[in-house]
Protein backbone atom coordinates (compact mmCIF):
# COMPACT_ATOMS: atom_id res chain seq x y z
CA UNK A 1 0.00 0.00 0.00
CA UNK A 2 2.87 2.34 0.91
CA UNK A 3 4.61 1.57 -2.40
CA UNK A 4 1.42 2.30 -4.36
CA UNK A 5 0.94 5.62 -2.62
CA UNK A 6 4.60 6.53 -3.14
CA UNK A 7 4.20 5.87 -6.86
CA UNK A 8 1.18 8.16 -6.99
CA UNK A 9 2.89 10.93 -5.04
CA UNK A 10 6.26 10.78 -6.76
CA UNK A 11 5.31 9.95 -10.34
CA UNK A 12 1.74 10.72 -11.25
CA UNK A 13 0.52 13.47 -8.92
CA UNK A 14 0.26 17.04 -10.15
CA UNK A 15 1.66 19.74 -7.92
CA UNK A 16 -1.73 21.46 -8.31
CA UNK A 17 -3.30 18.75 -6.12
CA UNK A 18 -1.23 20.11 -3.23
CA UNK A 19 -1.67 23.78 -4.20
CA UNK A 20 -5.45 23.39 -4.31
CA UNK A 21 -5.39 22.18 -0.70
CA UNK A 22 -5.17 25.90 0.05
CA UNK A 23 -8.83 26.11 -1.03
CA UNK A 24 -9.67 24.48 2.32
CA UNK A 25 -8.81 27.86 3.88
CA UNK A 26 -11.97 29.23 2.20
CA UNK A 27 -13.64 27.91 5.36
CA UNK A 28 -12.69 31.26 6.89
CA UNK A 29 -14.37 33.40 4.21
CA UNK A 30 -17.49 35.21 5.43
CA UNK A 31 -20.24 35.88 2.87
CA UNK A 32 -18.93 33.15 0.58
CA UNK A 33 -20.36 29.68 -0.17
CA UNK A 34 -17.58 27.96 1.74
CA UNK A 35 -18.47 24.48 0.45
CA UNK A 36 -16.93 25.58 -2.86
CA UNK A 37 -13.60 25.07 -1.08
CA UNK A 38 -14.29 21.31 -1.08
CA UNK A 39 -14.99 21.48 -4.81
CA UNK A 40 -11.69 23.28 -5.50
CA UNK A 41 -9.81 20.61 -3.55
CA UNK A 42 -11.28 17.95 -5.87
CA UNK A 43 -10.37 20.13 -8.86
CA UNK A 44 -6.77 19.78 -7.68
CA UNK A 45 -7.10 15.97 -7.57
CA UNK A 46 -8.61 16.07 -11.05
CA UNK A 47 -5.34 17.64 -12.27
CA UNK A 48 -3.44 14.59 -11.02
CA UNK A 49 -5.67 12.32 -13.10
CA UNK A 50 -5.00 14.53 -16.12
CA UNK A 51 -1.28 14.42 -15.38
CA UNK A 52 -1.37 10.63 -14.99
CA UNK A 53 -3.12 10.22 -18.32
CA UNK A 54 -0.54 12.34 -20.13
CA UNK A 55 2.32 10.39 -18.52
CA UNK A 56 0.88 6.97 -19.57
CA UNK A 57 0.72 6.17 -15.88
CA UNK A 58 -2.16 3.69 -16.10
CA UNK A 59 -0.43 1.41 -18.63
CA UNK A 60 2.90 1.72 -16.80
CA UNK A 61 1.18 0.71 -13.57
CA UNK A 62 -0.62 -2.19 -15.26
CA UNK A 63 2.78 -3.49 -16.43
CA UNK A 64 4.15 -3.52 -12.88
CA UNK A 65 3.96 -6.76 -10.89
CA UNK A 66 0.77 -5.77 -9.12
CA UNK A 67 -2.87 -6.79 -9.48
CA UNK A 68 -5.05 -4.63 -11.72
CA UNK A 69 -7.11 -3.67 -8.66
CA UNK A 70 -3.93 -2.20 -7.15
CA UNK A 71 -3.74 0.29 -10.02
CA UNK A 72 -7.21 1.48 -8.97
CA UNK A 73 -6.29 1.33 -5.29
CA UNK A 74 -3.31 3.65 -5.83
CA UNK A 75 -5.56 6.33 -7.32
CA UNK A 76 -8.06 6.02 -4.45
CA UNK A 77 -5.32 6.12 -1.81
CA UNK A 78 -3.96 9.33 -3.24
CA UNK A 79 -7.38 10.96 -3.61
CA UNK A 80 -8.47 9.99 -0.08
CA UNK A 81 -5.15 11.29 1.28
CA UNK A 82 -5.74 14.73 -0.27
CA UNK A 83 -9.40 14.76 0.76
CA UNK A 84 -8.58 13.89 4.37
CA UNK A 85 -5.78 16.49 4.46
CA UNK A 86 -8.29 19.11 3.25
CA UNK A 87 -10.85 17.85 5.76
CA UNK A 88 -8.31 18.22 8.58
CA UNK A 89 -7.60 21.85 7.58
CA UNK A 90 -11.35 22.56 7.30
CA UNK A 91 -11.97 20.98 10.73
CA UNK A 92 -9.28 23.09 12.41
CA UNK A 93 -10.59 26.29 10.81
CA UNK A 94 -14.19 25.36 11.63
CA UNK A 95 -13.20 24.89 15.27
CA UNK A 96 -11.57 28.32 15.13
CA UNK A 97 -14.81 29.83 13.81
CA UNK A 98 -16.85 27.93 16.42
CA UNK A 99 -14.73 29.13 19.35
CA UNK A 100 -12.40 32.13 19.16
CA UNK A 101 -14.22 33.74 16.19
CA UNK A 102 -17.75 32.66 17.19
CA UNK A 103 -18.89 36.23 17.87
CA UNK A 104 -16.90 37.99 15.17
CA UNK A 105 -19.18 40.49 13.42
CA UNK A 106 -18.45 39.37 9.80
CA UNK A 107 -19.50 35.80 10.69
CA UNK A 108 -22.55 36.92 12.70
CA UNK A 109 -23.70 39.01 9.70
CA UNK A 110 -23.02 36.10 7.30
CA UNK A 111 -26.10 35.31 5.20
CA UNK A 112 -24.55 32.13 3.83
CA UNK A 113 -23.65 28.82 5.42
CA UNK A 114 -21.70 28.90 8.68
CA UNK A 115 -18.63 26.81 9.35
CA UNK A 116 -19.99 24.15 11.68
CA UNK A 117 -20.13 20.32 11.86
CA UNK A 118 -22.96 20.28 9.28
CA UNK A 119 -20.64 22.10 6.85
CA UNK A 120 -17.90 19.53 7.52
CA UNK A 121 -20.35 16.68 6.90
CA UNK A 122 -21.41 18.27 3.59
CA UNK A 123 -17.74 18.71 2.58
CA UNK A 124 -17.34 14.95 3.09
CA UNK A 125 -20.43 14.33 0.94
CA UNK A 126 -18.83 16.39 -1.87
CA UNK A 127 -15.62 14.35 -1.59
CA UNK A 128 -17.74 11.19 -1.70
CA UNK A 129 -19.51 12.43 -4.84
CA UNK A 130 -16.13 13.11 -6.47
CA UNK A 131 -14.99 9.57 -5.69
CA UNK A 132 -18.25 8.04 -6.89
CA UNK A 133 -18.93 10.06 -10.03
CA UNK A 134 -15.50 11.17 -11.24
CA UNK A 135 -13.09 8.43 -10.15
CA UNK A 136 -15.65 5.65 -10.62
CA UNK A 137 -16.48 7.10 -14.05
CA UNK A 138 -12.82 7.56 -15.02
CA UNK A 139 -12.17 3.84 -14.69
CA UNK A 140 -14.80 3.07 -17.32
CA UNK A 141 -12.12 3.90 -19.88
CA UNK A 142 -9.03 4.81 -17.80
CA UNK A 143 -8.43 7.80 -20.07
CA UNK A 144 -11.62 9.89 -20.43
CA UNK A 145 -11.87 12.77 -17.97
CA UNK A 146 -15.43 13.65 -18.98
CA UNK A 147 -17.07 12.23 -15.78
CA UNK A 148 -15.89 15.48 -14.19
CA UNK A 149 -18.85 17.24 -15.88
CA UNK A 150 -21.66 15.26 -14.15
CA UNK A 151 -19.62 15.58 -10.95
CA UNK A 152 -19.63 19.40 -11.27
CA UNK A 153 -23.41 19.38 -11.77
CA UNK A 154 -24.00 17.07 -8.79
CA UNK A 155 -21.66 19.12 -6.61
CA UNK A 156 -23.20 22.49 -7.33
CA UNK A 157 -26.70 21.07 -6.79
CA UNK A 158 -25.46 19.73 -3.43
CA UNK A 159 -23.88 23.08 -2.52
CA UNK A 160 -27.11 24.83 -3.52
CA UNK A 161 -29.16 22.45 -1.37
CA UNK A 162 -26.81 22.85 1.62
CA UNK A 163 -26.85 26.65 1.31
CA UNK A 164 -30.64 26.69 1.03
CA UNK A 165 -31.33 24.23 3.88
CA UNK A 166 -31.22 26.72 6.76
CA UNK A 167 -33.66 29.07 5.00
CA UNK A 168 -36.33 26.35 4.99
CA UNK A 169 -38.59 26.53 8.05
CA UNK A 170 -37.59 23.88 10.58
CA UNK A 171 -34.05 23.49 9.24
CA UNK A 172 -32.55 26.63 10.77
CA UNK A 173 -30.46 24.51 13.15
CA UNK A 174 -28.30 23.49 10.19
CA UNK A 175 -26.74 26.93 10.33
CA UNK A 176 -25.86 26.85 14.04
CA UNK A 177 -23.25 29.23 15.47
CA UNK A 178 -20.58 27.97 17.87
CA UNK A 179 -21.84 24.94 19.78
CA UNK A 180 -25.57 25.59 19.34
CA UNK A 181 -27.63 22.46 18.53
CA UNK A 182 -24.49 20.45 19.07
CA UNK A 183 -26.02 16.94 19.22
CA UNK A 184 -27.85 17.58 15.93
CA UNK A 185 -24.74 19.10 14.35
CA UNK A 186 -22.57 16.12 15.33
CA UNK A 187 -25.23 13.74 14.00
CA UNK A 188 -25.17 15.58 10.67
CA UNK A 189 -21.37 15.39 10.59
CA UNK A 190 -21.45 11.66 11.32
CA UNK A 191 -24.08 11.24 8.61
CA UNK A 192 -21.72 12.96 6.16
CA UNK A 193 -18.87 10.72 7.28
CA UNK A 194 -20.94 7.56 6.80
CA UNK A 195 -22.01 8.77 3.33
CA UNK A 196 -18.37 9.50 2.43
CA UNK A 197 -17.28 6.01 3.47
CA UNK A 198 -20.20 4.34 1.66
CA UNK A 199 -19.82 6.41 -1.55
CA UNK A 200 -16.05 5.85 -1.64
CA UNK A 201 -16.34 2.12 -0.89
CA UNK A 202 -19.05 1.55 -3.51
CA UNK A 203 -17.12 3.65 -6.03
CA UNK A 204 -13.91 1.66 -5.42
CA UNK A 205 -15.71 -1.62 -6.04
CA UNK A 206 -17.33 -0.28 -9.22
CA UNK A 207 -14.00 1.17 -10.44
CA UNK A 208 -12.16 -2.14 -9.86
CA UNK A 209 -14.84 -4.08 -11.74
CA UNK A 210 -14.78 -1.58 -14.63
CA UNK A 211 -10.99 -1.50 -14.86
CA UNK A 212 -10.83 -5.31 -14.95
CA UNK A 213 -13.05 -5.27 -18.05
CA UNK A 214 -11.28 -2.68 -20.21
CA UNK A 215 -8.52 -3.21 -22.75
CA UNK A 216 -5.50 -0.93 -22.38
Amino acid at each position, binding site marked *: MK*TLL*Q*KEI*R*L*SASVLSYCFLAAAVMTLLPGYPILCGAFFVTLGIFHSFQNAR*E*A*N*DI*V*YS*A*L*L*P*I*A*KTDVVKGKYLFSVMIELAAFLIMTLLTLLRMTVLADAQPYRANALMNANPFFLGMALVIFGLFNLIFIGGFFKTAYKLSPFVPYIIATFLTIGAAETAHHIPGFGACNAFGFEHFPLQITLLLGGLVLYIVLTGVSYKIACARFE*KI*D*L
Partner: protein
Amino acid sequence: MEIVTLDGICKTYPAFRLNNVSFSLESGKITGFIGRNGAGKTTTIKSMLNLIHTDSGEIRYFGLPLIGHETEIKQRIGYSTGTVSWYPRKTIRQIIDVTRRFYPNWDENACRHYMELFSLDERKKPMELSEGMKVKCNLLFALSHGAEVLILDEPTSGLDPFSRDELLELFMKLKENGVTILFSTHITSDLERCADNIIYISHGEIQADCPKTDFMQNYGKPDETLEEIFLRLEREARA
Protein backbone atom coordinates in the same frame (compact mmCIF):
# COMPACT_ATOMS: atom_id res chain seq x y z
CA MET B 1 12.21 -26.22 -22.80
CA GLU B 2 9.13 -24.13 -23.55
CA ILE B 3 9.01 -21.22 -21.15
CA VAL B 4 6.12 -19.24 -22.68
CA THR B 5 3.14 -20.82 -24.42
CA LEU B 6 0.25 -19.18 -26.23
CA ASP B 7 -2.55 -21.57 -27.02
CA GLY B 8 -5.41 -20.61 -29.34
CA ILE B 9 -5.50 -16.90 -28.55
CA CYS B 10 -8.42 -15.10 -30.23
CA LYS B 11 -9.35 -11.45 -29.96
CA THR B 12 -11.94 -9.72 -32.08
CA TYR B 13 -12.07 -5.97 -32.72
CA PRO B 14 -14.60 -4.33 -35.03
CA ALA B 15 -12.09 -4.23 -37.90
CA PHE B 16 -9.54 -6.86 -36.94
CA ARG B 17 -9.39 -10.38 -35.57
CA LEU B 18 -6.50 -12.19 -33.94
CA ASN B 19 -7.30 -15.72 -34.93
CA ASN B 20 -6.19 -18.78 -32.99
CA VAL B 21 -2.64 -17.57 -32.30
CA SER B 22 -0.54 -20.34 -30.84
CA PHE B 23 3.23 -20.50 -30.37
CA SER B 24 5.80 -21.12 -27.71
CA LEU B 25 9.11 -19.53 -26.78
CA GLU B 26 12.02 -21.75 -25.95
CA SER B 27 14.18 -21.03 -22.96
CA GLY B 28 17.38 -19.13 -23.78
CA LYS B 29 16.41 -18.43 -27.39
CA ILE B 30 15.74 -15.24 -29.33
CA THR B 31 12.51 -15.44 -31.29
CA GLY B 32 11.89 -12.86 -33.99
CA PHE B 33 8.26 -11.81 -34.35
CA ILE B 34 7.62 -10.35 -37.79
CA GLY B 35 4.64 -9.08 -39.68
CA ARG B 36 3.56 -5.86 -41.33
CA ASN B 37 1.81 -3.01 -39.48
CA GLY B 38 -1.60 -4.13 -38.30
CA ALA B 39 -0.80 -7.84 -38.68
CA GLY B 40 -1.44 -8.50 -34.98
CA LYS B 41 2.01 -8.28 -33.37
CA THR B 42 1.14 -5.61 -30.81
CA THR B 43 -2.25 -7.20 -30.04
CA THR B 44 -0.46 -10.50 -29.39
CA ILE B 45 2.10 -8.78 -27.16
CA LYS B 46 -0.63 -6.90 -25.27
CA SER B 47 -2.43 -10.17 -24.65
CA MET B 48 0.85 -11.66 -23.36
CA LEU B 49 1.02 -8.79 -20.85
CA ASN B 50 -2.66 -9.10 -19.91
CA LEU B 51 -3.27 -5.55 -21.08
CA ILE B 52 -6.18 -6.76 -23.21
CA HIS B 53 -8.74 -9.47 -22.63
CA THR B 54 -8.66 -12.33 -25.07
CA ASP B 55 -11.89 -13.93 -26.25
CA SER B 56 -10.44 -17.41 -25.86
CA GLY B 57 -7.16 -19.28 -25.44
CA GLU B 58 -4.59 -19.49 -22.70
CA ILE B 59 -1.16 -17.96 -22.04
CA ARG B 60 1.30 -19.72 -19.76
CA TYR B 61 4.67 -18.60 -18.42
CA PHE B 62 6.98 -21.02 -16.61
CA GLY B 63 4.10 -23.55 -16.70
CA LEU B 64 1.75 -21.15 -14.88
CA PRO B 65 -1.37 -19.64 -16.48
CA LEU B 66 -1.09 -15.84 -16.77
CA ILE B 67 -4.60 -15.39 -15.42
CA GLY B 68 -4.37 -16.07 -11.72
CA HIS B 69 -0.56 -15.76 -11.52
CA GLU B 70 -0.08 -12.35 -13.12
CA THR B 71 1.78 -10.72 -10.23
CA GLU B 72 4.39 -13.45 -9.78
CA ILE B 73 4.83 -13.82 -13.55
CA LYS B 74 5.39 -10.08 -14.02
CA GLN B 75 8.20 -10.24 -11.45
CA ARG B 76 10.01 -12.56 -13.84
CA ILE B 77 9.36 -10.88 -17.18
CA GLY B 78 10.35 -7.55 -18.70
CA TYR B 79 8.73 -5.47 -21.40
CA SER B 80 10.18 -2.74 -23.50
CA THR B 81 8.78 -0.77 -26.36
CA GLY B 82 10.25 1.83 -28.63
CA THR B 83 6.97 3.64 -29.12
CA VAL B 84 5.87 4.91 -25.70
CA SER B 85 7.59 7.08 -23.14
CA TRP B 86 6.53 6.92 -19.52
CA TYR B 87 6.43 9.94 -17.19
CA PRO B 88 8.04 12.34 -19.71
CA ARG B 89 8.49 15.09 -17.11
CA LYS B 90 10.14 13.02 -14.37
CA THR B 91 13.84 12.30 -14.24
CA ILE B 92 15.03 8.77 -14.99
CA ARG B 93 16.30 8.57 -11.39
CA GLN B 94 12.83 9.45 -10.03
CA ILE B 95 11.22 6.73 -12.15
CA ILE B 96 13.85 4.18 -11.10
CA ASP B 97 13.48 5.03 -7.40
CA VAL B 98 9.76 4.27 -7.54
CA THR B 99 9.86 1.31 -9.93
CA ARG B 100 12.54 -0.66 -8.06
CA ARG B 101 10.31 -0.85 -4.97
CA PHE B 102 7.93 -3.13 -6.89
CA TYR B 103 10.68 -5.65 -7.71
CA PRO B 104 12.35 -7.58 -4.87
CA ASN B 105 14.90 -8.77 -7.47
CA TRP B 106 15.84 -5.26 -8.59
CA ASP B 107 19.61 -5.11 -9.08
CA GLU B 108 20.90 -1.57 -8.60
CA ASN B 109 24.37 -2.60 -9.83
CA ALA B 110 22.88 -3.99 -13.04
CA CYS B 111 20.85 -0.79 -13.37
CA ARG B 112 24.02 1.33 -13.09
CA HIS B 113 25.84 -0.97 -15.49
CA TYR B 114 23.17 -0.64 -18.19
CA MET B 115 22.86 3.09 -17.59
CA GLU B 116 26.56 3.41 -18.30
CA LEU B 117 26.39 1.01 -21.24
CA PHE B 118 23.51 2.97 -22.79
CA SER B 119 25.13 6.33 -21.93
CA LEU B 120 21.97 7.37 -20.09
CA ASP B 121 22.09 10.31 -17.73
CA GLU B 122 19.78 9.63 -14.77
CA ARG B 123 19.16 13.36 -14.32
CA LYS B 124 17.51 13.57 -17.73
CA LYS B 125 13.78 13.33 -18.30
CA PRO B 126 12.27 11.03 -20.96
CA MET B 127 10.96 14.15 -22.80
CA GLU B 128 14.57 15.28 -23.22
CA LEU B 129 15.68 11.99 -24.80
CA SER B 130 15.87 11.14 -28.48
CA GLU B 131 13.68 8.26 -29.72
CA GLY B 132 16.63 5.90 -29.61
CA MET B 133 17.55 6.90 -26.07
CA LYS B 134 13.91 6.36 -25.01
CA VAL B 135 14.19 2.79 -26.25
CA LYS B 136 17.35 2.33 -24.19
CA CYS B 137 15.66 3.89 -21.17
CA ASN B 138 12.75 1.45 -21.43
CA LEU B 139 15.19 -1.43 -21.83
CA LEU B 140 17.05 -0.31 -18.73
CA PHE B 141 13.92 -0.90 -16.62
CA ALA B 142 13.31 -4.31 -18.19
CA LEU B 143 16.90 -5.43 -17.63
CA SER B 144 17.37 -4.18 -14.08
CA HIS B 145 15.06 -6.61 -12.33
CA GLY B 146 16.66 -9.73 -13.75
CA ALA B 147 13.83 -10.66 -16.09
CA GLU B 148 13.98 -14.25 -17.38
CA VAL B 149 11.76 -13.41 -20.35
CA LEU B 150 12.05 -10.17 -22.30
CA ILE B 151 9.18 -9.05 -24.52
CA LEU B 152 10.52 -6.39 -26.83
CA ASP B 153 8.19 -4.47 -29.11
CA GLU B 154 10.33 -2.82 -31.79
CA PRO B 155 13.26 -2.22 -29.45
CA THR B 156 15.67 -1.14 -32.18
CA SER B 157 13.40 1.33 -33.97
CA GLY B 158 14.90 4.82 -33.93
CA LEU B 159 18.37 3.63 -33.01
CA ASP B 160 21.46 4.54 -34.99
CA PRO B 161 23.36 1.59 -36.57
CA PHE B 162 26.03 1.65 -33.86
CA SER B 163 23.49 1.58 -31.02
CA ARG B 164 21.54 -1.16 -32.78
CA ASP B 165 24.70 -3.18 -33.09
CA GLU B 166 25.43 -2.71 -29.37
CA LEU B 167 21.92 -3.74 -28.48
CA LEU B 168 22.02 -6.88 -30.61
CA GLU B 169 25.31 -7.81 -28.94
CA LEU B 170 23.61 -7.33 -25.61
CA PHE B 171 20.64 -9.51 -26.60
CA MET B 172 23.00 -12.29 -27.63
CA LYS B 173 24.85 -11.99 -24.33
CA LEU B 174 21.56 -12.13 -22.43
CA LYS B 175 20.61 -15.20 -24.43
CA GLU B 176 23.86 -16.88 -23.40
CA ASN B 177 22.84 -16.18 -19.80
CA GLY B 178 19.58 -18.07 -20.38
CA VAL B 179 17.23 -15.11 -20.99
CA THR B 180 14.37 -15.81 -23.40
CA ILE B 181 13.62 -12.97 -25.80
CA LEU B 182 10.61 -12.25 -28.02
CA PHE B 183 11.76 -9.60 -30.46
CA SER B 184 9.04 -7.93 -32.49
CA THR B 185 10.47 -5.78 -35.27
CA HIS B 186 10.21 -4.52 -38.81
CA ILE B 187 13.98 -4.41 -39.13
CA THR B 188 14.44 -7.99 -40.30
CA SER B 189 18.18 -7.58 -40.74
CA ASP B 190 18.42 -7.44 -36.93
CA LEU B 191 16.77 -10.85 -36.75
CA GLU B 192 19.04 -12.23 -39.42
CA ARG B 193 21.87 -11.52 -37.04
CA CYS B 194 20.50 -12.64 -33.70
CA ALA B 195 17.28 -14.67 -33.95
CA ASP B 196 17.12 -18.43 -33.44
CA ASN B 197 13.45 -18.77 -34.35
CA ILE B 198 11.02 -16.81 -36.48
CA ILE B 199 7.31 -16.32 -35.97
CA TYR B 200 5.58 -14.71 -38.92
CA ILE B 201 2.10 -13.28 -38.47
CA SER B 202 -0.18 -11.95 -41.19
CA HIS B 203 -3.82 -10.77 -40.96
CA GLY B 204 -4.05 -11.93 -37.36
CA GLU B 205 -2.93 -15.49 -38.07
CA ILE B 206 0.40 -17.19 -37.51
CA GLN B 207 1.78 -18.19 -40.91
CA ALA B 208 5.09 -19.63 -39.80
CA ASP B 209 6.70 -20.62 -36.50
CA CYS B 210 10.01 -22.40 -36.88
CA PRO B 211 13.81 -22.12 -36.50
CA LYS B 212 15.23 -19.29 -38.59
CA THR B 213 17.23 -21.68 -40.79
CA ASP B 214 14.06 -23.68 -41.57
CA PHE B 215 12.18 -20.46 -42.32
CA MET B 216 14.87 -19.35 -44.77
CA GLN B 217 14.91 -22.79 -46.37
CA ASN B 218 11.16 -23.41 -46.54
CA TYR B 219 9.97 -19.93 -47.52
CA GLY B 220 13.01 -18.39 -49.18
CA LYS B 221 14.60 -18.66 -52.59
CA PRO B 222 18.36 -19.02 -53.01
CA ASP B 223 20.26 -15.92 -51.83
CA GLU B 224 17.12 -14.21 -50.56
CA THR B 225 17.48 -12.25 -47.30
CA LEU B 226 14.91 -12.45 -44.53
CA GLU B 227 13.60 -9.03 -45.57
CA GLU B 228 13.21 -10.12 -49.18
CA ILE B 229 11.36 -13.26 -48.09
CA PHE B 230 9.08 -11.24 -45.83
CA LEU B 231 8.31 -8.71 -48.58
CA ARG B 232 7.62 -11.42 -51.15
CA LEU B 233 5.33 -13.33 -48.80
CA GLU B 234 3.36 -10.17 -48.06
CA ARG B 235 3.08 -9.33 -51.78
CA GLU B 236 1.95 -12.86 -52.59
CA ALA B 237 -0.64 -12.73 -49.80
CA ARG B 238 -1.99 -9.45 -51.19
CA ALA B 239 -2.13 -10.68 -54.77
